[in-house]
């Protein structure tokens, strides 16, 4: 068991910077998930920890040792790979005990550890199977057992569930959490699936373009995203963004105005800002009873409904002549709202909606940095909307 520290790790390929000045401090026993879109550098970051890729700059420490120049085998790590990577010419026992045999463990100890690891992943009695005779989930368990058996300081998991079917993925997710609870080892987990990141981790490190965007517990990333990228990446469906400017009495855009006191935020009139609101924080005007601070009503037209069973996603068009463009929900003239499945909203309806002020986010449009989470201090004149509706809070 050990903490993992990355200091200024940078990896450059010819003219591409895969990882850019990455600093991470992962304490002993923590489950940290590196999450980001494809090609954001999360896997490369993990490979530098594993020793499979040498960083161009920076240092990596595991425990008290600096391991930057050590080969993978001397780093005290174990890794589970996306493509599982069981050795196809060895049976389960040989696969699991591969690392132990290389380190000349005696036979009894090897047997004991293999049995133990097989028990943890619930694969007892299958030790003489060949990888080709097993299902994807079983292979992945064997791969996890192979990592467990060496009792490593740090577990690295590179999208270990990506190749499993949806049902198995959810199951293995809980299995991994159970294993982590039992062993209490440091885990670094790479995934592009933010559901995995949200459910399993102690902290999430959101990475984009090779840079660390935010590292915080899942709910902090969700409720208080540091910047536009994190806000848009964490959460499904993703946050609605409305671009606008700061006016004398708050936020001003073509269709959506929200009044607030910009004074304490060091914002000048005319500054470009982006308002963010999650689909579940938008309510039809009549159903906002539970919201203590709501904005003024905004007139919208229902474009498309997506019933999910437990909720309905409603695509709202803000402008009369807006083109429906489901591919680009950030187009600025549409909003996505999540409503109760009992709702009787239908496509083509005109609906007035309000936002929950406590859940509003304000970002600097140019830098993307978050300015404020929750805009609850209403000024005297509550905001007006572009479509003319005006109510008191």
């Amino acid at each position, binding site marked *: 068991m050990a903490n993992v520290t990355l200091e200024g790790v940078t990896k450059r390929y010819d003219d591409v910077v895969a990882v850019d000045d990455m600093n991470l401090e992962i304490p002993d026993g923590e489950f940290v998930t590196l999450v980001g879109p494809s090609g954001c550098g999360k896997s490369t970051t993990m490979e530098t920890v*594993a*020793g*499979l890729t040498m960083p161009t700059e920076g240092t990596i420490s595991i425990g008290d040792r600096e391991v930057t120049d050590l*080969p*993978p*085998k001397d780093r005290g*790590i*174990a*890794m589970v*790979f*996306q*493509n*599982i*990577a*069981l*050795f*196809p*010419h060895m049976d389960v026992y040989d696969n699991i005990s*591969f*690392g132990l045999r*290389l*380190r000349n463990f005696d036979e009894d100890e090897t047997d004991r550890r293999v049995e133990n690891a097989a028990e943890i992943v619930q694969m007892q009695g299958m030790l003489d199977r060949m990888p080709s005779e097993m299902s994807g989930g079983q292979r992945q368990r064997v791969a996890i057992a*192979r990592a467990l058996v*060496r009792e490593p300081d740090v577990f*690295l998991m590179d999208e270990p569930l990506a190749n499993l079917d949806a049902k198995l993925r959810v199951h293995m997710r809980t299995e991994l959490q159970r294993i982590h609870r039992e062993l209490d080892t440091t885990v670094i987990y790479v995934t592009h699936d933010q559901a995995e990141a949200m459910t399993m981790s102690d902290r999430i490190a959101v990475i984009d373009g090779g840079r660390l965007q935010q590292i915080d517990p899942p709910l902090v990333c969700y409720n208080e995203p540091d910047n536009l990228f994190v806000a848009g990446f964490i959460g499904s469906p993703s946050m609605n963004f409305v671009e606008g400017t700061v006016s004398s009495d708050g936020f001003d855009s073509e269709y959506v105005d929200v009044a607030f006191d910009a004074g304490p935020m060091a914002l000048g009139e005319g500054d470009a800002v982006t308002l963010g609101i999650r689909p579940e924080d938008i309510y039809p005007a009549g159903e906002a009873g539970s919201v203590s601070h709501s904005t003024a009503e905004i007139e919208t037209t229902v474009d498309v409904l997506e019933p999910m069973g437990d909720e309905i996603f409603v695509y709202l068009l803000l402008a009369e002549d807006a083109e429906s463009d489901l591919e680009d929900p950030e187009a600025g003239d549409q909003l996505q709202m999540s409503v109760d499945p009992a709702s009787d909203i239908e496509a083509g309806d005109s609906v007035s909606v309000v936002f929950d002020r406590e859940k509003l986010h304000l970002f600097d449009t140019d830098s993307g940095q978050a300015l404020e989470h929750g805009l609850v201090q209403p000024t005297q004149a509550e905001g007006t909307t572009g479509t003319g509706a005006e109510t008191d809070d």
Partner: protein
Amino acid sequence: MAGAQASETSDDDAGPFTRWVQKSIRNPDRTYRAMFYVVTIFFLITTLFPFYWLLVLALTPTDLVDQAGLLPAGFNPEAFITIFEQLPFHVYLFNSFVIALGTTAVVLVLASLVGYVFGRLEFPGRGILMILVLAISYFPPAAFLLPLFRLFTGNVEILGLSSPFVFNSPIGIGLPLSALFMPLSIFILTTFYGQIPDGLEDAARVEGTTRLGALVRVIIPLSAPGVATAGVLTFINVYSEFFFSYLMTDGQAQNWGPLVWGILGYQTQYAASYNLMAAASIIGVLPVAILVVIAQERIVSGLTSGALKE
């Protein structure tokens, strides 16, 4: 009239050939099968007839050799024993075996390392290096025979030291042949090692092997058909090689004279015992024939999968 007749032509009044053609048009599989048999029989005859001819010669007594036709003139199987009485033919066989095995081992070890580098690592100049290796395999051996001969007989001084005397030793034959047959193995193994997924090598390295360890424990076992193909082809090439085998020893059995010297040994200044040479040839071919029969499945799968990849 003619047209009417043609339309009424049935299987009954046509000749057997016409009928066969008509059936084949209706059922093209028949044609393909027939073509398969024709071609197969052609190849079988052209490859197996020389062996049959050797057998005919071996069984024909020396004095009747000019009368041998498609059947042996007389029956004299003693030739197969005489060859071991006149010369220590088993020693020549042994010499060739040792040289071929040794060369194969050297080639496989070196070509594995090169194949790993070419197949699994990206580095500048890789393509040029591979072409260079390929070019070496097209070198005419005769072009470097003389300098090699001088080198191997201790006639070249390197930094004041005369070169080691390896004429009449397995090294004298094995060294140039390793170099000549290495490119083939390198290309076969490059293809195979390149096909092993990166993840497996990464997994092995994380589990505790070095790069070399991953090659030996994971990549080579998974490339078994390729390694077998490269090994068998190298063995056969060296075993049946003529040029260096003939010129890098003086032909004495105790001086590591290989098979070719053994076979030619039955030809003296005054007489050429064709029956003995034929018998020796047959016995010389046997080990290779057995090897190929045993390994043929792997060779075929090795050659074709290599071919598909390239």
